[in-house]
């Protein structure tokens, strides 16, 4: 039961992670700073999912990366591209639409259940 639930939750959240990550990349972030940023808004993300996700987004040209070697430890910074911003805005609109639709649906579910 718990196992099923957690796999369903993972599936439900899979697509939203990209949205969460893209939204935080208007300023350049490196891997761990992004994790902390997301956790501040209490969005928890598996790290083993996050780093590969960043690379995929880079490949899709939604973000770009650069190595910063000026500090003691080299870090790879990611920032959203112009194209990424366009896509992000569209995804945001889509997300708001979907949540509204779902809210209506789920509200209907509660009303039906109380009948």
């Amino acid at each position, binding site marked *: 039961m718990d196992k099923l639930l957690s796999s369903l939750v993972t599936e439900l959240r899979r697509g939203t992670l990209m949205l969460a990550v893209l939204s935080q990349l208007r300023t350049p972030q*490196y*891997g*761990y*700073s992004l994790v902390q940023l997301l956790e501040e808004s209490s969005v928890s993300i*598996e*790290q*083993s*999912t996050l*780093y*590969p*996700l960043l*690379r995929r987004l880079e490949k899709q040209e939604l973000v770009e990366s650069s*190595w910063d070697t000026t500090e003691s*430890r*080299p*870090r*790879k910074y990611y920032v959203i591209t112009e194209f990424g911003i366009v896509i992000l805005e569209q995804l945001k609109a889509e997300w708001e639409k979907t949540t509204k639709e779902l809210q209506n649906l789920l509200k209907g579910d509660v009303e039906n259940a109380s009948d």
Partner: protein
Amino acid sequence: MHLIDIYIQEVTRRLPGKSRDDIGLELRSTIEDMLPENYSEKELKEVLNNLGNPALLASEYSEQPMYLIGPKYFDMYMTLLKMIIPITALLAFFVIIVENIITYSGEKDIVNGIINVIILILGHGIWGMISSAVQTFFWITLVFAILERTDASKGKSSLTPGWTEWTPDNLKSIPLISKEKRISTGDIFGSLLRIAIFISVYFNASDLLGVYEKVQGKIQLTIPTFNQEVLQSYWLIVIVALILEIAFVFYKLIVRQWTSKLAIMNMVRNIVSSIVFIVVFSNDRLINDEFYAYLKDLLHVPLELKNPVIIISILLCLVFTLLDIMQGFRKGNMK
């Protein structure tokens, strides 16, 4: 520090060469970011535990699929397997049986006779069938695994056997097959087995068929039923009929259902086969005189048996042929 190196190695060795260094470097700086100054081994383990199994992490990075054949190709893959494996397996079975019969040396020792010959030849046939099925399976799988990895098109939907995206028009080319009209694999296999048995008996009839008696404690074939020379002198027309039979079985394998066209072909092959049968059986030297004599003793009949046997054989052949032809038309014309 040591554990970090191993962890990074375990991730990067699973990745394609060109992305290894970059991912390794990024992973190292990330791990170090997560660790406090002067960390203990326990803290390090906790961080690595957070990143999870290196194999899983590598699979997330990897763009190659972690499966052999994905949903896009799976249906086509299965369809082709189901279509091609029976054909190649049956063909191999058949070719090997014929090959074995032709090279069969015809030992006279009948204790090792009919049953052993059949078992031996069938054994070779079944072995050949299995190995050709495994071969076919391997090559088809290999081709699809390569396709899966080289296909650049991003479409995720399952393809149809015609390699195109599905549209409702595809349905028009598929017949609706009722249960009665369907030709089962068992039916086809049975036909081929009958043909194989027939070939093995035909070429070795004088060693296999006849009266078996116990001679000096050994069971031996004392009176062969058929005169092998006479039987074999008809080889040309027998082979023509056989080729027709085999072609018919393979045609059945492809169309998979009875149609009126198939019924007509069934009639043609039945007519050809029974003509051959009648031609061969009407030769009065086909069955050995000794065998007739033996039969006469056995049944205690005073009549000459030769003509009745020939006539009854031919009549039986005609009846079965007629029944089979009618059955074909019944199935073929069914709605």
